[in-house]
């Protein structure tokens, strides 16, 4: 499923949430990264047709989201998990999936119920199928969220911050579930959690202040910090200078800081870069030259 975004702009009053974004991607998983307020959720809503653009165009599988027929076609092949989703508390898990299946146009009751059972099994909620959603934990609701997104076997799956609020075990389960989905679908994953992207996506795009500042492979993003990542041991105080601290750990008699910098302080030891370091390096570069796209 090819998705093409051309000159996509969205204004909210005087605020420009997305500014002439161009992006193209096909099958597999793409991670959408960026700081708070960068425009990730706005881009997700535009990709799903929930919002209309102020300017620009989105096509999904050749269907233009700018016209009614295009939106209708895309909605038939779309699965979406919004950032905040609190499913109807008065329905059971099974009923909720059946309802979503009906709204997605799955007319065959037997097929709908079979798909709901399969998805409940897949997200580990088969034992809770009859329980009302109002009694579910945050993690269980998130899993219901992904299950409903998969009703109708969508070819494009858009998931916004799916692992927020999950405990580590649930997050791992979620990641393996997501990774298994990317094969024959296009999955767009928006997240703050770099580890989720490192573990599941082959490609990443980074938004800063409504503009794409990186669009490429995940290793390519990590490479931004290559030869710029160091460990700095101090007696306690954070090293000063033109650097970004990506981690800090106590060593017993002092502190070890992990920094990304072009001017390493005295005693800094070069180390292999991670995706987190690459993201920090990119943010440093974006702050220095915010108007340039990488």
């Amino acid at each position, binding site marked *: 499923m090819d998705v093409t975004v051309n000159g996509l702009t969205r204004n909210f009053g005087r605020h420009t949430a997305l500014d002439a974004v161009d992006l193209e991607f096909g099958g597999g998983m793409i991670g959408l990264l960026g700081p708070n307020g960068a425009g990730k959720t706005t881009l997700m*809503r535009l990709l*799903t*047709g*929930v*919002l209309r653009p102020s300017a620009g165009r989105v096509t999904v599988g050749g269907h233009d989201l700018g016209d009614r027929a295009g939106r*209708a076609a895309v*909605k*038939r092949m*779309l699965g*979406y*998990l*919004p*950032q*905040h*989703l*609190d*499913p*109807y508390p*008065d*329905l059971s898990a099974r*009923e909720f999936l059946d*309802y*979503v299946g*009906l*709204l*997605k*146009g799955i*007319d065959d009751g037997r097929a709908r119920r079979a798909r709901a059972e399969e998805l409940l099994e897949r997200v580990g909620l088969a034992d809770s199928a009859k329980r*009302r959603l109002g009694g579910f934990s945050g993690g269980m609701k998130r899993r219901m969220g992904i299950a*409903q997104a998969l009703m109708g076997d969508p070819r494009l799956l858009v998931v916004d911050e799916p692992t927020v609020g999950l405990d580590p075990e649930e997050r791992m389960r979620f990641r393996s579930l997501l990774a298994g989905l990317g094969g024959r679908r296009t999955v767009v994953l928006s997240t703050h959690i770099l580890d989720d992207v490192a573990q599941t996506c082959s490609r990443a795009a980074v938004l800063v202040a409504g503009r794409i500042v990186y669009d490429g492979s995940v290793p390519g993003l990590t490479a931004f910090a290559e030869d710029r990542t160091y460990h700095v041991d101090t007696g306690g105080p954070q090293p000063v200078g033109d650097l970004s601290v990506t981690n800090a750990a106590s060593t017993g008699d002092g502190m070890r800081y992990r920094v990304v910098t072009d001017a390493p302080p005295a005693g800094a030891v070069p180390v292999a870069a991670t995706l987190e370091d690459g993201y920090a390096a990119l943010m440093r570069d974006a702050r220095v030259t915010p108007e340039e796209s990488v």
Partner: protein
Amino acid sequence: MTRIAAVGAVVRYEARMAARARAVWIGMVPVALLGLVIALAPLTGQESARLNAGVMAEGLALLVPVGVAVVLADRLRRGGATGMDELLDTAPLNGTVRVTGVLGGALAVALVPVLALVAVLGAVIAVRTGDAMALGWSALAFLLVVLPACAWTAALASLLGLVLPVTLARFLVIPLWFWAISWNYALLWAPTPVGTVLVPSGEYPAQAWFGTTPAWAGRGQIDWLSPAPDGAVTGLVNLACVLLGTALMVGCARLIMMRRR
């Protein structure tokens, strides 16, 4: 899936959710009991079963719609804060159709105690008039007099619930209802649909099909909007106006829900 089947699916699940919401029953059962008191008194049995059914429906239409409005004022708002509206907007089903289904399903459940009440009152009329057709007339009176009024107030309250805090919407809808159906503009002037074909009180249909004597119909402030109640034509015109008003409020609600994103 056809549009009708899709609305049916939404109505089914929304009704299920409303049926499980205690607030709906806590609100509607006392309203139905109060409706029993109001509607029972005038049923003397001295006139025909048809007229008694019309009088009974007019009595219920005073109170039941406002109870429905208070109970259902939150139905369209609840999906906004939980992300459900955003999610369901990505489904192929048209948004206005969905909103109609949401209100339709919840309204169906809210009216269950009222339907039971209508059956009881229909039986009372049947006994007092000795006419078994009273049950049928009562059901018809419910459909033509009470139901359109309830749909109108449900749409109004849901619309208010989108633009105001729900508690305020619940309070505000009460004076609005009585302004719309019984404001005495001769005592204190204010623009009101009372006496016109826009009025949702059911007076015109009650006169048209059940032979009741209207209190206000035909005496509105604007002559051309206030034809003398004269049978099926004015009854149908009034029903069409009430349903159109309901549809307009549902459409406005949908627009507000879309613009909020």
